[in-house]
């Protein structure tokens, strides 16, 4: 439970961080909240030689409205999402999802960029950003590029992000009063999701139903065709490849995702039509 020795650096600017990252290449790892990285280092499943701490970079810690979108800095912590007035008004799904992550300690450390970069299909925020149809902004010494979240993930813990790139920003649409809901299903209150379903504005993002966060496309299509919530929810497992583990069989997860999708869609409908 003691990591292999490593060098530690805490650069003051994004540029300095990027330069360090470029210099050390594969031997370096970015440290943001550390709540995914440190456990794997302690288990010695990861042994970076250089750890570059970006967790306190103020220039990557913000939440602001930018045109039709809300722009969120890469090291913005869950806790900041939870208490953000901007998000409460413009994109209420995100704080609601962030509130379900781990426990208070985790939420005070973990970052939105870290969660997206880490790419655990059982994590909450990636599926939420996917349901929102957000964008991941990546920066390297070579420049800045924006990748739609739908094209970001390539597999378990892997994405199109290059080793020299930082997640500097996440952009999500201003969904305003559009109906939303998050159904996270756990064994214990602080656990990871066995399955999670994020719904916003008729889009549905799934947690832990495959090697990456997924959109329930068949459900979305059914909704768009005006079919009932029940009918649409019954299609939530189409195209998924749920994992098998202690917490659930694939068969169970396929069942569960339909139940949770129905519940989330029902809740979302209630919010979008007050008094209905």
């Amino acid at each position, binding site marked *: *439970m*003691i990591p*292999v*020795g490593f060098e530690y650096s805490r650069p003051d600017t994004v540029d300095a961080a990027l330069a360090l990252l470029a210099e050390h290449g594969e031997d370096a790892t970015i440290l943001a909240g550390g709540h995914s990285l440190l456990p794997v280092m302690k*288990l*010695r499943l990861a042994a970076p030689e250089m750890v570059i701490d970006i967790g306190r970079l103020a220039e990557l810690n913000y939440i602001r409205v930018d045109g039709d979108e809300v722009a969120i800095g890469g090291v913005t912590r869950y806790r900041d999402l939870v208490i953000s007035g901007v998000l409460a008004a413009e994109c209420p799904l995100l704080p609601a999802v962030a509130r379900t992550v781990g426990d208070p300690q985790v939420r005070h450390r973990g970052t939105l960029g870290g969660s997206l970069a880490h790419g655990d299909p059982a994590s909450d925020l990636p599926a939420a950003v996917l349901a929102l149809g957000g964008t991941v902004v990546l920066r390297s010494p070579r420049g800045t590029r924006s990748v739609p979240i739908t094209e970001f993930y390539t597999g378990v813990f892997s994405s199109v992000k290059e080793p020299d790139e930082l997640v500097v920003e996440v952009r999500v649409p201003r969904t305003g009063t559009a109906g939303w809901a998050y159904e996270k*299903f756990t*064994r*214990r*209150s*602080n*656990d*990871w999701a*066995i399955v999670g379903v994020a719904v916003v504005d008729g889009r549905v993002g799934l947690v832990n139903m495959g090697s990456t966060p997924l959109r329930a496309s068949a459900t979305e299509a059914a909704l768009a065709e005006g079919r009932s919530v029940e009918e649409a929810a019954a299609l939530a497992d189409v195209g998924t490849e749920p994992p098998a*583990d*202690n*917490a*659930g*069989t694939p*068969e*169970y997860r396929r*069942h*569960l995702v339909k*139940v*949770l999708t129905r519940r989330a869609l029902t809740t979302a409908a209630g919010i979008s039509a007050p008094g209905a």
Partner: protein
Amino acid sequence: MPVIRGIVSPAMSILGTRVVRTEDPVFLTRGATYTDDLTDERLTGALHLTLVRSPLAHAKITSIDTEAAKAAPGVVAVYTGADLDLEPALLFPAANKAMLRPFLATDTVRYVGEAVAAVLTEEHWQGEDAADLVEIDYDPLEAVIDLKKALSDEVLLFPEAGTNSVTSMHLGKDDPGDEFFADCEVVITREITNQRVAAAPLESRAASAYWGDDGRCTIFCSTQNAQSARDEVAGWMGMDAKNLRLILPDVGGGFGAKIGADPEFALVAAFSKMAGRPVRWNESRSENMTGMVQGRAQLQTITIGGDRDGKVKAYRLDVIQDAGAYPRLGVVLPMFTRMMASGTYDIPKVWSTAQVVATTTTSTAAYRGAGRPEATQAIERAMDLFADEIGMDPAEIRKINVIKPEQFPFTTKGGAEYDSGEYAKAIDLALEASDYTGLRAEQEARRKRGDAVQLGIGVSSYVEITGGGAFVENATVEVHADGTVTVLTGTSPHGQGHATAWAMLASDELGIPIDKITVIHGDTDLIPKGAGTMGSRSLQTGGVAVHNAAAELVDLAKQRAADLLEANVDDLEIDKETASVVVKGVPGSKSVPLAELAAAEELKVFHEWDGKKPTFPFGAHVAVVEVDVESGKATVERIWAVDDAGPILNPLIFDGQRHGGIAQGIAQALLEEVVFDPDGQPLTATFADYGIPSAAELPSFDLVTMETPTPVNPMGYKGIGEAGTIGSCPAVQNAVIDAVSHLGVSHIDMPLTPVRVWTAIDAAQKEASK
């Protein structure tokens, strides 16, 4: 009830009052001093031990190369089994004699986490780096996980034993066969699992050792019983126990898993001798989750028979106990399970067998209840299955079959001699407190409406053994010239509050307030004899010894005071307001303070108490759960617990024991299970994977008081440490199954996780629609 902080009016006995635990301020503020926190000068310059553990469940060791590790920074020594002067040991005497455990594996590893090599470093943090450099080549062998497969002896853990069977009890011998159930109108049989669980105490295992110039070895360690651990380690090391001293700093929980010594204790002592320096060892949580003994792990076949009027006539329990790789205390669990097989019921015919088998997994041993919860779970499931089959209410069927108060003392078919009990009364109290009838009505309404969230009501009736096995315990009470008192006890608290409870017992006799009484335990030089804390034995053995010692000290004081007061001993008594010996009925006459007597001559009494018998606490629990039938998630809404362990010494501690116990029972019912994959790899070796509950998963507990004394000791005390676990676990399992029984489900194995509950519902519905 008012909270009392150690000050009571002398007119009133402190016994039975809610005295706040005197040990808690330290635990809750600066924290206790556990073995790894020790800054004892005898450990100055200690080396740190890191063990290199097997990543495979079963394999031949083909080579070990320690060269690179020896060259790593901070490394002082790297040892393998070849360097060790410790003979492989039988960790439990009643086990198969060929199943010896090497202290460091030399030829074969038999579970993931088995120690193969040892690294001693100057600093703790250097150990893992060096351990990574020890190169061990393994030739994998087939893992043995499934208990029935293990019994088939296809793959042997110890080829020299010729079998994986550790021992068996009444197997085949006088088997009554099918005739046993011939007179029963209804017979139900089913296999159920009492899953393996981890004790997971907050303080993981730790030990430090140093050798004095006098050739004696001192081991500071975390265990539930210093004296027996000393004897075990001495035996393993082939040394005279007189030359070994065990000192227990604060012990951060044990739950049975810290009974006795761990092989690592002998390793720190041996390495300290070899290296000529003190050695410290403290395992990581991941090591603990594979290295520390685990509990339960029984595969049971229950068969219950009786008539449609609800009378149970015959019950049979066949147990296969998983011993893990190297048999330890787990071997005795089925003995207790068999003894307690028929629970609180008067069943005319009872039969049980047990087989204990070795598997390539972590060894098993005691865990809160140790063998009794397994018996209770089995009979309580059997009762519900039987009730379900004949269409009778589970509470009703229990009341029909329980042993009646006039039948005590009652000797069971399993050979237990129940001392006292009012089983039906306990059930009635629980039913009344919970408004059982109202709950059933609510359940019926939800079923009729077809609600997604159904209500389940589970009833358990239980009896258990406390103070079973180690009946003798001692205490020394000494009054000092400054008026303070020292109590030495052979029991060993690891969270139970002995410092408060024992002080209360002494205070009540001596009239000296508890803040002047210090309780000392767990140093084998100061307290050479003692059996420690396990099996809920402390109060009825160690507590009674303290009480008796204090009472004897009062007698002694009276004898000494008789001359000074020029009075007859029989006319003297203790004035509890002044802690003085006074003449009875003559207020204001001459008196002698105990302190003054102590100043004149040592005022100290050693008392050894032999209870000769165990006691049998009992109770009844009613659990109410909600089950979301769409997702399978079960949530405990309420639990009413009637736990009767005789007179209550301190309700705060008593209820605390129940709280922890009930929580662990609920945890086993719903969440916890140690899982190995078919290759023997542990899948639950971190707290992310292993399902320990938090407060958020538990309801508030409704505790109902009932106090039936035992005739076994003068104070009437029984034990309360394990009762909560034993009562709550079956109540919760029964409740969850009850919630979905109308959907065609008759049994679900623990833990009743959402996936299991849903899968059971799904299977029942598919079956029904066939």
